[in-house]
Each structure stands twice: as structure tokens, then as C-alpha cells.
């Protein structure tokens, strides 16, 4: 590629390299010392905030339901469309009289589990393909990277929906298809890392000492590429949560009565004027989770990028 800006990614370019500017101009402006420190502190503060938010969301989703008097499937038919903060249903109820807060919590379990699991699978697939492509190079490497390019040509929502419409939607299958359409970014990152790392002295030494390919890749090279992989994986969680919400909102993801943040919004549009809270809270939950993971990823990039330590 001719691009001087790193190709950005997953939900197509939503993952951004917000920090590249700091490195470039940081070295040319002598008075920047104090400002850069402030800048980094600032970013880290946002990352800490993000981490706190994720812990809170996970605790709420996984422990919260035990604290409520009703579960997400309990139907309180006399209290349909209860507005928030007006009854025992703190965040109101839905058209069937189910507690909105209980549903939000259960949905959080589903949505965040999918985000994490999809990230794990995507990172494994991406790392393997990227490592093979970067380490062996040649025709195999070129073929694998062209496959990455080809996959990235498909707008991810189109591809996800086309596959989701064919399969039997369930938590496992949705996780799998999200993972299989989002491993390319990690593959690119790992391929780039492997290409440069394998030329370094320690890698050449390991090769000369007769280390097997597998040993060199897993014991010598990959540990040195952990930083960028962790950053890409963190942003991958954010994008996987977004992806799940998109396809569930459009009706091809997690199917009711299992709630997910996305499918809770599925029929919220028709009640927009009469029961706006049905649309507001799940959206806020998605935005909070995704923003937090993006902040963490950004903070990690600053923290793990050795180029900033000068």
C-alpha cells in the first residue's frame, strides 16, 4: 500500500490510530515535554475510566440479576409500559411487562460474552494466519494476505447479515460468524510484526541454533509482538459488541426471548413516541461498553508502544 497512514480497521476503519500524531510531532517540538505528559496522563485517565466502566458493567450484568426480585422473563402484565423511576421496575417495563433493568443485565451477559468470545477466536485465527504469512512470506504469505485484502473488501455488515441469514442463529453461531469476519485486522498487525521481527538478531540466532519454526514463532517472535496484538484484541472486543448489536437490531442475530442489547432495540422504534426508554437504555449500554473498550485500547497503545519512551 502507498498509504502513509496505517490501514485502519475492523468495523471497517472504526479502529483508529489516535496516537500516531503524538509520536511524530513530539520529537520536533522542544517545549512539548510537559504537554505530552499531560496528554498521556489524560489518555490513561480515560483508559482507567474505561476499565472501571467495564468492571462495573460486568459486575452489574453477572451479579445484578441476583439482586432483583424478578428475572428477565417474568411477565408483570398489569405493569406493561411502566415508565422508568416510577414503580418497583426501576428502568420501567417493556410491552410485555418484563422488567427493563433485568433484561438489560441479562442482555449485557450475552452481548459482552459474545464480544469477548468473538475476540478470542478472531485473535487466534488472525494471529495464526498473520504469523504464518509473516514468517514464511513468499507465495504462501502473499496468498494469505491477499485473502485478508479480499475479506476486507466486503462491508462487514453485508457479509455478517448474508451469513447470519443462512445459519441457525444462536449465541455460539453468532459469535463464530462475528469472529470469522473480524480476524483480518489482527492478521495484518501480526504479519507486519513477524516480518520485521524475524530479521532481528535474536530471531536469526534462534534459527542458527536449530530452533524449529514452531519454536521460533511461538517462543521467540510472538512474545515480542504481544503489545500490538493486545491493542488490536481490545479494539476487537469493541467492534464485536457493535457487530452483535447491528445484526441483532436488524433481526438476524440473537433471537428473542434471549435478550441482547441489540435485539432489545429491535422493536423499540415502533414505541419511540410512547415508550422512549425502551430505545434509550440499551443504546446507552452499548455506547458505554464500546467507548470503554476503545478508551482502554487507546490507553494500552500508549502504554505498550515503546516508541513513546524517549
Amino acid at each position, binding site marked *: 500500500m502507498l498509504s502513509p497512514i496505517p490501514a485502519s480497521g475492523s468495523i471497517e476503519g472504526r479502529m483508529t490510530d489516535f496516537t500516531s500524531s503524538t509520536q511524530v510531532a513530539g520529537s520536533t517540538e522542544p517545549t512539548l515535554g510537559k504537554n505530552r505528559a499531560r496528554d498521556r496522563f489524560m489518555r490513561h485517565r480515560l483508559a482507567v475510566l474505561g476499565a472501571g466502566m467495564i468492571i462495573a458493567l460486568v459486575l452489574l450484568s453477572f451479579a445484578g440479576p441476583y439482586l432483583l426480585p424478578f428475572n428477565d422473563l417474568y411477565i408483570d402484565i398489569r405493569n406493561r409500559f411502566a415508565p422508568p423511576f416510577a414503580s418497583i421496575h426501576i428502568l420501567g417495563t417493556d410491552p410485555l411487562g418484563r422488567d427493563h433493568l433485568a433484561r438489560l443485565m441479562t442482555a449485557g451477559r450475552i452481548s459482552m460474552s459474545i464480544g469477548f468470545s468473538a475476540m478470542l477466536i478472531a485473535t487466534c485465527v488472525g494471529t495464526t494466519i498473520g504469523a504464518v504469512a509473516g514468517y514464511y512470506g513468499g507465495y504462501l504469505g502473499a496468498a494469505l494476505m491477499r485473502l485478508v*485484502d479480499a475479506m476486507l473488501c466486503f*462491508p462487514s*455488515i453485508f457479509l455478517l447479515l448474508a451469513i447470519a441469514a443462512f445459519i441457525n442463529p444462536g449465541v455460539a453461531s453468532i459469535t463464530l460468524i462475528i469472529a470469522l469476519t473480524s480476524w483480518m485486522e489482527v492478521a495484518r498487525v501480526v504479519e507486519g510484526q513477524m516480518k520485521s521481527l524475524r530479521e532481528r538478531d535474536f530471531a536469526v540466532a534462534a534459527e542458527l541454533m536449530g530452533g524449529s519454526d514452531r519454536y521460533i514463532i511461538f517462543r521467540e517472535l510472538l512474545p515480542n509482538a504481544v503489545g500490538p496484538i493486545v491493542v488490536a484484541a481490545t479494539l476487537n472486543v469493541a467492534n464485536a459488541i457493535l457487530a452483535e448489536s*447491528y445484526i441483532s437490531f436488524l433481526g438476524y442475530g440473537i433471537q428473542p426471548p434471549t435478550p441482547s442489547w441489540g435485539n432489545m432495540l429491535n422493536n423499540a422504534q415502533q414505541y419511540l413516541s410512547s415508550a422512549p426508554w425502551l430505545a434509550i437504555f440499551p443504546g446507552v449500554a452499548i455506547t458505554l461498553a464500546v467507548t470503554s473498550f476503545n478508551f482502554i485500547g*487507546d490507553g494500552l497503545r500508549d502504554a505498550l508502544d515503546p516508541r513513546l519512551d524517549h
Partner: protein
Amino acid sequence: MLRFLIQRSLQNVVLLWLVSMIGFGVLFLAPGGPLAQFALVPGMSRAELLRIAEQMGLNRPIPAQYWEWFTRLLSGDWGHSYRDGQPVLWIIGSHLGATLELMVVSATVAVAVGMWVGVLGAIRRYSVFDYLATIGAMIALSIPTFWFGLVTIYVFSVKLAILPAGNMYTIGDGSFWDYVRHLIAPSLVLGLVTVALWSRYMRSSMLEVIHQDYVRTARAKGASEWVVLTRHAIRNALLPMITVAGLQLPTLLSGALVTETVFTWPGMGRLFLDSLSYRDYPVVMGVLMLSAVLVLIGNMLADILYAVADPRIRLD
């Protein structure tokens, strides 16, 4: 230049071939493949299904089927819709215009806004504005597009009642002004991600340019700040943004699909979703392939434009 163009075109032919393989793979992932629509017909016997499969050529080896599908794709025969028998390309063509209008209007405004936010962030670096723009962009990139659409409808159509909640025209009113009123909210929603991305990339790009020698030279020769900024700095900072624009095409298309659904905008995204619910696989495949090809062409154009615009790039 010619060598570069040929090389790029060849690479893209290979990519197109890979894209078609993935597309074909998706099609065959379908349980029952293209036969699924007939399997649902009541009273359909297994023997009859086999007969249809043979008629459709589905009993032949998969490479042969792929080859036929691919050559038809290249010759413009993208099959016929299961829903109304119209040719797929014709159906897509009749919906593409609305999508392009939405994308072009939204992207034009968003790019202009995003660019200036990025420029201001770069020249007033670490100012309150810069921090707010950074955090704002992060949040904007994290908001699900469809939810932002719902919020927009709630605020502007339900509460303030100043914008229509969807569609392209009010029934019985086909005026230009009516069209513009319907275009505002979806463009805003679709443009949010573009503004955020452009402001971030533009900021990075400006920061790289702003300390270059030619900017200092321009200042030294007495050019006004405005001239330095617009004629020297921004012009050069915009160069890498050509590539960014190319890379953003898939985001824009995905965003358009979701936005069209929320605002019932009669474009390609709506067509895709409608076809999905009708199990109209030929149209689904057509839209999927066409969007990938559009992205491919967009990226290639961006590469070429970048090479043309920046004489420092050596093409071979």
C-alpha cells in the same frame, strides 16, 4: 505510471477473483443452497427436489458450478430475483441511486466538517477544543449508527417535530424542498462516523505537515497565516486523506445499510434487508458482490489519485 496502473489492475483482478470465491462460498453455505426456496414448498417430494437440482445444474461438481456462476457474473448476467423475476442488476440499479445520493451528500458535508475540526485540533493542540474533539470522536465512533438514528428521530421528529421520521418523499409531495427535508436526518446519522474519522486523521496529518520546512519557508517569506494554512499546510495534509477516503468506503456502505433501514430510505441497504427476509438469494448475492466490487474500485481509484496528486510517490 503505465506500469503502475497495469500492476495495480492485475492485483485487483486477483482480488476480484478471491472476492468472488468468498461470495460463492457464502452462497453455498446456505442450508440446501439455492434449493432452499423449493424445499419449503408444501408437498415437495425428494425426487422432485432432485429433478430441480438437476435442472439448475446443482448436481455438477462445485468447481464447474463456480465457473459458470463466475462467467455469468462477468458477463453481467447476475440472475433473476426469486421475488418478482426481474434481473438482479436491474433491481440493484434502481436502488443504487438513492444510496449514492445519501452517501455523497452525507460524506461531502461530513468530510468538510471533519477536516476543519482536525485542522483546528492540530493548530490549537492540547486546547480544550482539541481534547473535546478527541473524546467526542471516540464516543462518536462507539455509538451504534442505528441507535443514533433512533435518537435523532426521537428528538427531531417526535419531540421537536421539525423533520420527517423516514422515507424519501412525503406522499403527494415530490418537491425538491421536501426531498431535502427527508435527507437531513439520515445524512447527519450516516455522517457522524465520517466526521469523527476525518477529524482524527486530519489532525494527525496536519501535525506531520505543520513543522515541515516548506511551511516555515512560507511563513518566512511573509505569507499570512491564512495563506500558510490553506495553500501550504492543508493542501499537503490532505494528500494522505485520499487513501483514508478509499479505506472508508466499506464503513460508509455498512453505515448506509443501517441508516437506510432506520429511516426507510429506499436504497441498496434496504433492498438487501428486504431480500434477506424474502430469502431472495440472487439479489442478496448481487448486493454483496456489488458492494465488494465498489470497495475494490474505490480503493484502486484512491491509490491512483494519490499517485497522481503526490509527485513524490515513485510509481515503480
